């Protein structure tokens, strides 16, 4: 990539050159990422599946992340409730809707987005490190020699596994965060658990938005990380770079998708 740019601008590189190089890099990266995504979808529809590969990835992505996700989301639930309780105490000392509002926020956004960020960290780095190691040890080249598309063989099982397990883990993460939140509310602010468990504010829009986010993140994490893994070059340093880029890019993808989906749901369902 940088080779082309140097040809067109041989003399002193200025700020325009830098910006242009960044822009071209970004554009090329986005096009390749789009290519991986389209090929993933194509092979999901058309490809033959290796037996057990999806199940193994589901174990790898789902069961192996359970402990990490439960711990992180449990603490997040306690933090959010504690901070919200302090905040409410300063303005209106009325805790009756605390649980209902918390549950609504959790269903609509927090469970999916925070859980998604956790999974992007855990799963994204794992996928990129695994595929990246295969690239630098030339196993991916061997796949290509056998006329097997690495996207079909490596990315598709992870994609399918992640679609299912991200949704499952996010629902579980939401439950854990709600439970620890309820405990915090009853210990720190004397809100009875029965009053805290109030589902009156959840409507169809919240559930649809939350589930859309689960599916979108579940699709984005393996595609972005698989792309980062497949574009690894160099030896062990390259693998480290690939894992780093996978974490950063999948987190960024989640934050941007969150902004898009949240805006869309605000426009579709309105601010009820």
């Amino acid at each position, binding site marked *: 990539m940088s080779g082309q740019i140097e040809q067109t601008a041989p003399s002193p590189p200025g700020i325009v050159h830098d910006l242009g190089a960044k822009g071209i890099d970004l554009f090329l990266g986005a096009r390749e990422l789009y290519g991986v995504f389209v090929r993933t979808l194509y092979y999901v529809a058309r490809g033959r599946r290796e037996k057990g590969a999806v199940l193994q990835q589901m174990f790898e992505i789902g069961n*192996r992340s359970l*402990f*990490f996700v439960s*711990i*992180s989301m449990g*603490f*997040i639930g*306690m*933090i*959010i409730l*504690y*901070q919200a309780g*302090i*905040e409410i105490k*300063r*303005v209106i000392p009325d805790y009756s809707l605390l649980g209902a*509002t918390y549950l*609504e*926020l959790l269903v*609509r*956004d927090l469970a999916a*987005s925070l859980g998604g*960020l*956790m999974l992007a*960290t*855990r799963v994204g*780095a*794992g996928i*990129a*490190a*695994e595929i*990246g*190691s295969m690239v*630098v*040890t030339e196993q991916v080249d061997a796949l290509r020699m056998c006329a097997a598309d690495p996207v079909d063989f490596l990315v598709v099982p992870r994609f399918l596994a992640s679609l299912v397990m991200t949704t499952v883990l996010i629902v579980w993460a939401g439950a854990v965060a709600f439970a620890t939140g309820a405990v915090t509310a009853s210990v720190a602010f004397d809100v009875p658990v029965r009053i805290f468990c109030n589902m009156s504010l959840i409507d169809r829009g919240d559930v649809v938005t939350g589930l859309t986010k689960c599916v979108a993140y579940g699709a984005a994490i393996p595609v972005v990380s698989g792309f980062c893994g497949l574009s690894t070059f160099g*030896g*062990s*340093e*390259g*693998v*480290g*770079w*690939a*894992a*780093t880029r996978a*974490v*950063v890019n999948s*987190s*960024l993808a989640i*934050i*941007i998708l*969150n*902004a898009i989906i*949240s*805006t869309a749901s*605000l426009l579709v369902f309105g*601010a*009820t």
Partner: protein
Amino acid sequence: MSASVSQPSLGQGRGLAGPAAAAGALFLGIAETVGAMAVLFASIVRTMAAVPPTLDTHELRRNLHKMAVKSLPIVVVTALFTGVIAVIQAAPVVKRYGAEGLLGWGAGFATLREVAPLLTALMVSGRVGANNTAELGTMVVTEQIDALRALAIDPVAFLVLPRFIAIVVTLVTMTVYADAVALAGAAFAGLGLLQIEPRSFYNGLTGGLLGFGDVANGLVKSLVFGFVIALSSCHFGMSTTGGAPGVGRSVNATVVASASGVFILDYFVSFLLG
């Protein structure tokens, strides 16, 4: 997971089949990781307090540039979107209670105390912490660290200490940026989505309900997060084994350990600071 550092033999050969052994091995692994980080921290402190200062300022400056300056774009983008998302999520509550004037205060409270330090820590742990692990891990597997030891150069003084300081400084300064950018994003989202004038957002922000204490709260948190990220990143980097796949595993372990450490400590720091 962090259990990857523990010897796999711990879970077997004790006659304790099944989940009990697995759980024990998991906790032994965690304890081992935490203990190794504490030892690393002690040696960092000892190096820092050495009488002729051994800090390599050139290495420190190089790392600061590589970590802080180069992460600025990603932190700014994250913070901008975070501010927008915070307002979108607050919109129903604001509409329900007609609390347009309080949006600035609400967004400010959440951003300064919780959201900006937390998300900046996650992004910095992904970008800087993981990258640092990869760099140190590569040095380990290519035996550059052994070469340093052979030359009687202490790797902690030469490599770890500058990186530790650079990561902590990076995280605190990036949090300041993220605070400002996220609030700007929230103000514009309030104007665009809820038709709340930036002026009234600003009034809500500075109306007296928020003080320097809230900003300081967030910055203390980011200091603690910086310690966690720097320690786990240096620890897993220096304890890498086994070629290119080993570097990948170390990076994975680093990001997982940093993220869990950040969330667990966030709770305790929030609780202690009140």
